[in-house]
């Protein structure tokens, strides 16, 4: 599916640009966005190196095990494929906790570590496993307690009550997360019925 979306966006973009007569803009977009992607990846190095370093200390000290022990019932429900006491659990929980607190740049490295562990569990294949998709669904709908960035923007525009969106954001993300998990389950069982894995 991602192949069709990718080709679709490019081809439709070229055709529409031909009709609109802004092919020059498209040419510019190709090279500026490729550059932006590389800049973005390099920009992530600092955050990844820092948080992965800190997380390694947490892992070696046994904090991740404590975390996964405390929240085992939740993870067991959401990720029935992960064996008990597997390191993936600790990373998934750290990722969820970082999202909850609006620490986007801490959530990404932990999510990546969780994916790494899930890939090992899946025999190192380059296919997305059931648990990987569940983790993705939780991340894209992420329950948020404190949307830090948006509060900062509201303050910049002199909002009288910059934090009054905390309640609707919490409600909306709670609904979205429940919805995302339900959809994830639906497609999982559908793929089972189709005979796929």
């Amino acid at each position, binding site marked *: 599916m991602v192949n069709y979306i990718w080709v679709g966006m490019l081809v439709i973009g070229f055709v529409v640009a031909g009709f609109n007569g802004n092919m020059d803009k498209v040419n510019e*977009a190709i090279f500026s966005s490729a550059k932006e992607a590389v800049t973005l990846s390099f920009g992530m190095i600092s955050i990844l190196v820092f948080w992965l370093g800190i997380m390694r200390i947490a892992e*070696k000290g046994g904090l991740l095990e404590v975390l996964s022990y405390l929240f085992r019932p939740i993870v067991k429900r959401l990720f029935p494929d992960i064996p008990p006491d597997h390191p993936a659990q600790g990373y998934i929980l750290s990722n969820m906790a970082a999202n909850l607190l609006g620490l986007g740049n801490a959530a990404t490295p932990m999510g990546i570590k969780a*994916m790494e562990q899930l890939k090992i569990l899946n025999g190192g294949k380059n296919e997305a496993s059931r648990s*990987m998709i569940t983790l*993705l669904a939780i991340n894209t709908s992420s329950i948020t307690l404190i949307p830090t960035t948006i509060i900062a923007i509201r303050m910049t525009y002199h909002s009288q009550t910059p934090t009054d969106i905390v309640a609707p954001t919490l409600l909306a993300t709670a609904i979205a997360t429940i919805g995302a998990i339900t959809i994830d389950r639906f497609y999982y069982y559908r793929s089972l019925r189709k005979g796929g894995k």
Partner: protein
Amino acid sequence: MSFVHSFSVWFIPFLIGFIILYGTYKKVPTYETFVEGGKEGFSIAINIIPFLVGMLVAISVFRASGALDYIMLVMKPLFSLFHIPAEVVPLGLMRTISGTGALGMTSDLIATHGPDSFIGRLASTIQGSTDTTFYVLTVYFGAVGIKKMGYAVKVGLLADLIGFLASIFAVSLLFHS
């Protein structure tokens, strides 16, 4: 407000302090472990590059050509049928494909309508409540080299739609009455 602000300022140092002190207590060679763990960050970032280049180029071609504007134009009447304010429809679409693009739109909506207006609050909630699916998909799967994504794309996009509709519902419920 000051509480939320000071919470987020204090939280990260507190978290780091707790982790390194706990590590010290457990006799972990903290500094060496930090360096060893951090090394991995570099290779992960390098692994992401081709995935991110491919995705960002496709998205920006789609945007620059004007194709995204046509889609929004077509979808607007559909959304107004369900009493969804037309102003936030482009934001809902943009939120799925580009985080920075959506942030720009949110700032623009807040600047135009005021941060404490219905549209301003709605834009803030939409921005705060969903994450950019294509970004999460590209970065998380790219970092570990997942190429066959299965039904992940469908799940992510439908989750975005639910987040968008839930934001409208939540803001209407809490502020409109």
